[in-house]
């Protein structure tokens, strides 16, 4: 399994990176952690003429927080840095959980958050919580920047809205609402080093006083070509306190919305059943956690 011949560039600034991608366009691929890209190149599924390694560009690195505005995560930030960030753990718990489940220690120390979204696998670990948390991506090029909600950036299995001369520079996560909590869950065949059969994230906001749900986002992964945002679950739960009856109703509704397929990892039927299990589990977890903040 050797790679084909290509040219390698390692820009040190964002301008240099935009210049290269602007000039080389569709013949080039951005190299971040390489944990998807190099595998696809080994399989000859992709044979780019040029690789643009963005790991040396400081503007694409790191996690920073601005009160009231939210959190900015550079696209080339390693999954391990996200997993170990106390800021992410405190404010975006679902993302913290998902980061800790991606691959192995080695994979997490190589893989980046930008690569996970740009590869756009339906079973991706971090896209589900990022969509639930309301993440936006910044697409940057020589011509400037544009911002898209992550759920609009990912179009389907390995399809994104990334333009030929663009790269993803950053993710922006809004400041979490008061009295809110998020959590993530996944089901796979074994605990470690497993691509999810189903994953899910819930982000729940309670009214300022009382126990009624003010806002809720439930997102399912690996049961559709892209992260699936439930419309029915919020319709059932917003404005109400959580009760066993409502959770049952909401979990069944989520099952109905899921559009899973059967593949090597699980049957469609099993996936649907697991959507029910995860929805119940995560709704209770998020509701209980939100009352404690």
């Amino acid at each position: 399994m050797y790679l084909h011949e290509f040219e390698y560039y390692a820009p040190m600034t964002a301008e240099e990176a935009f210049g290269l991608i602007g000039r080389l366009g569709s013949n080039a691929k951005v190299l971040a952690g390489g944990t998807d890209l190099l595998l696809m190149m080994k399989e000859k599924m992709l044979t780019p003429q040029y690789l643009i390694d963005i790991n040396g560009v400081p503007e694409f690195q790191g996690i920073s927080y601005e009160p009231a505005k939210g959190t900015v995560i550079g696209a080339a930030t390693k999954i391990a840095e996200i997993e170990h960030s106390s800021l992410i753990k405190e404010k975006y718990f679902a993302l913290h959980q998902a980061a800790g489940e991606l691959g192995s220690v080695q994979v997490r120390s190589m893989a980046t958050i930008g690569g996970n979204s740009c590869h756009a696998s339906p079973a991706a670990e971090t896209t589900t919580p990022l969509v639930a948390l309301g993440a936006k991506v910044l697409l940057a090029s020589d011509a400037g920047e544009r911002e898209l909600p992550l759920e609009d950036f990912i179009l389907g299995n390995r399809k994104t809205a990334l333009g030929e001369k663009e790269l993803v520079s950053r993710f922006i996560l809004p400041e979490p609402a008061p009295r809110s909590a998020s959590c993530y869950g996944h089901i796979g065949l074994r605990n470690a080093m497993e691509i999810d059969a189903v994953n899910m994230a819930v982000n729940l906001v309670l009214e300022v006083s009382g126990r009624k749900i003010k806002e809720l986002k439930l997102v399912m992964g690996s049961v559709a070509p892209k992260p699936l945002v439930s419309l029915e679950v919020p319709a059932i739960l917003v404005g109400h306190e959580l009760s066993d009856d409502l959770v049952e109703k909401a979990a069944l509704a989520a099952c109905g919305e899921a559009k899973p397929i059967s593949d090597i990892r699980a049957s469609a039927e099993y996936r649907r059943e697991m959507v029910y299990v995860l929805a119940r589990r995560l709704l209770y977890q998020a509701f209980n956690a939100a009352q404690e903040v």
Partner: protein
Amino acid sequence: MKLIQLDINNQVYEIPVNPRDLLVDVIRKKVGLTGTKKGCGQGDCGACTVLINGVPVLSCITLAISCLGKKISTIEGMADEQGNLHPIQQAFVDHGAVQCGFCTPGMILSAKALLDQNPLPSVLEIKRSISGNICRCTGYKKIVEAISAAAKEISTGEVK
């Protein structure tokens, strides 16, 4: 081909590489350090684990050319100059944690990265740290015991 300098175990090697050359192949074939193993070649088995700036990475999916200016550590750099084994290596020997040995270099480097960060890990933390290293022989129990024992050995050694 481009001549690049790679810092492996604190020794600088000047090596001609192609952009497409993978770090594992350069270490094994061009530098001649064959302790690093190549198993699956696709990130799954961890046999090719090396440390880059102290962090465990998979050399089978790393381009050698991307390692310029970084510190690479392989299993050959673990023993001291006199050839005394590192406490983790010694613990693997003492606890029967080596059978065929194919997973061992990667396993030991993963363990070193863990203990450098977290000198007295729990059993669960040890298991998590080697979840990307597959062993076909030992059943992992003795490996986990060896890492626990090495952690104690290194920590008490430092107190002395």
